[in-house]
């Protein structure tokens, strides 16, 4: 009966209750959407960094990352690569030889990291081949081809950006054009301190979602950079993609990759990119802060509505106490009313929020108007909303907790009523 009375009381003032329920639903929808937008953006950014930069796991010579000396190769790197590839958890792996140097053309010189890669294996690990926007992915040139980034091509004067509004014959917006097959000179310090120079020809231009990366990374063939360095089959880095990202956090698995070699440093993507780790870990907190702020605002709305309901019914509550309804039941009734009011909006908000997340998870949100700023931050032009299922359950729990907290004060105020005074009130 108490439940029935409480439920009916919620609908005594339909408009007021509907306003609160709508506010709760909209608050949740907005919160869930914001969370999923951030989550989607973060997931995409993380995925992109893993795919383009860090991979799931990297192996280096133990001291390589301290000063990035070219002489610090992975001992028997190619043998290790072959061993790593046999691990069932490993989806793809590749080796790289790295050098910090300069790339020059007639325009000038630009500081870059030169990545000597095995093109077909690199494609499996970083999907670099899919990011080529002009030219070819190491095809058509046998010796010293180089792949440069979109931003670097622009700085070197080999990218032409069409005037705004210019369209192709088919009416689509005109895309930038690039000059390829241009010669560049790479210079870097080889082991032993001698500066090495090499002439390369631009075979293609790639573009990732991170313009900073595109500006500062060039790719050449593994054997070309080894030859220029004066080495053979030497690698500084083994990059590994796993079938299951979570395995990257399995310390036993990581240790097994080093095969007991103390000269090796095996790191997962969180160790390699602490900023990613930080963002990933603080995201969970941010999500709860988002929701917390929204629910706090809703809490005051619910308390206000229920206080109004209690004050309006002073006489009735007094009567209930007079005829023998004890304080526990009065308290429970008001609590139930508040919980009903709060939790009706909860599932509606969660369902609509989920629907919205699914919708924009499929069609994406086009941020191309902010592409430049996004590229600086490593964010793509399309953001696909996404939110892990457990967040919905946690939000539902937060709504219930909010409802319980919101219920306490109005119920307490109802208990303060004295029947004789309440009945007398108008």
């Amino acid at each position, binding site marked *: 009966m108490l439940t029935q009375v409480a439920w009916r009381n919620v609908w005594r003032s339909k408009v007021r209750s509907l306003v609160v329920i709508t506010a709760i639903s909209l608050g949740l929808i907005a919160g869930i959407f914001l969370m999923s937008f951030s989550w989607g953006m973060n997931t995409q950014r993380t995925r992109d960094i893993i795919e383009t930069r860090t991979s799931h796991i990297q192996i280096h010579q133990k001291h390589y990352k301290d000063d990035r000396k070219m002489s610090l190769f992975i001992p028997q790197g190619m043998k290790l690569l072959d061993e790593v590839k046999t691990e069932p958890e490993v989806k793809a792996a590749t080796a790289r030889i790295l050098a910090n140097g300069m790339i020059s053309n007639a325009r000038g010189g630009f500081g870059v990291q030169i990545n000597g890669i095995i093109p077909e294996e690199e494609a499996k690990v970083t999907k670099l081949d899919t990011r080529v926007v002009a030219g070819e992915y190491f095809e058509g040139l046998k010796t010293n081809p180089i792949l440069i980034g979109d931003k670097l091509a622009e700085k070197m004067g080999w990218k032409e950006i069409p005037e705004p509004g210019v369209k192709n014959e088919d009416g689509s917006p005109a895309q930038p054009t690039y000059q390829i097959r241009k010669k560049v000179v790479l210079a870097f310090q080889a082991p032993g301190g001698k500066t090495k120079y090499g002439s390369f020809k631009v075979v293609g231009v790639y573009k990732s979602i991170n313009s900073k990366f595109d500006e500062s990374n060039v790719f050449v063939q593994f054997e070309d950079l080894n030859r220029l360095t004066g080495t053979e089959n030497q690698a500084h880095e083994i990059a590994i993609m796993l079938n299951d990202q979570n395995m990257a956090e399995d310390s036993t698995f990581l240790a097994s990759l080093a095969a007991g070699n103390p000269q090796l440093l095996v790191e997962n993507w969180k160790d390699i990119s602490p900023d990613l780790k930080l963002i990933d870990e603080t995201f969970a907190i941010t999500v709860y802060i988002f929701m917390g702020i929204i629910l706090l605002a809703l809490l005051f709305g619910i308390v206000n509505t229920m206080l109004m309901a209690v004050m309006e019914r002073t006489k009735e509550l007094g009567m209930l106490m*007079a005829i*023998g*309804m004890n304080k526990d039941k009065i308290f429970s009734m008001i609590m139930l009313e508040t919980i009903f009011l709060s939790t009706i909006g909860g599932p509606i908000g969660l369902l609509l929020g989920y629907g919205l997340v699914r919708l924009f998870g499929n069609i994406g949100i086009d941020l191309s108007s902010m592409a430049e700023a996004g590229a600086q931050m490593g964010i793509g032009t399309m953001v696909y909303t996404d939110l892990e299922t457990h967040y919905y359950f946690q939000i539902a729990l937060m709504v219930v907790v909010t409802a319980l907290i919101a219920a306490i004060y109005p119920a307490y105020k109802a208990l303060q009523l004295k029947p004789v005074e309440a009945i007398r009130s108008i």
Partner: protein
Amino acid sequence: MSVIITKNIYKTYPGVVPVHAVNGVSIDITEGEFTAIVGPSGSGKTTLLNIIGGLDKPTSGEVIVNNQDISQLSNNELIDFRLHNIGFVFQAYNLIPVLTAKENVEFVMLLQKRAKEERDNRVAELLDAVGLGDRMNNRPSQMSGGQQQRVAVARALAPKPKFVLADEPTANLDSTSTSNLLDIMAELNRKENITFVFSTHDQRVIDRARRVITLEDGKIVSDVTRE
């Protein structure tokens, strides 16, 4: 047998000039009485009724209801005492607006955890008795003032209380409704031997009462029992 005994009770509201709402009242109401406490506004009749009903506590004096001194009970004990001993009828009907007539009458019995069959039988019996057997499923907003007050009487009687306290029960009713209501209450008083105590200044009620206690300035100025 006495069901209500007050011994020299006072109710004083403090202030710059303290107000003695009830000023040394001693009364003895026996089972089956149909009593009206009358007096002009401010004479203390509602305060006295509230004290008898355990809604208010006297500043001093004893209130013995069913051989129990209720002035010594805690607030929670008083609520429980009211639930099992007293039926209330209020001036402004005070039904639960979200419940139907049937549910309103049943409500107190539910609080008492009475069995469903007993509740159903009693509710049907009482709503028939007050002439609302056909309005069981109507909510208060769908009934007239007189009908609502009849539901309130049925509600007060549903748990078979020792006595019913009615505070100005006819104040908002027209003559016909008042007459009907008084007939119903007199009938139930006679049939079920339930004690009725009214506070009123409605002459129609006073005329039907078998005992009339008149208060002025919180004191009893007359106590007349009619045959």
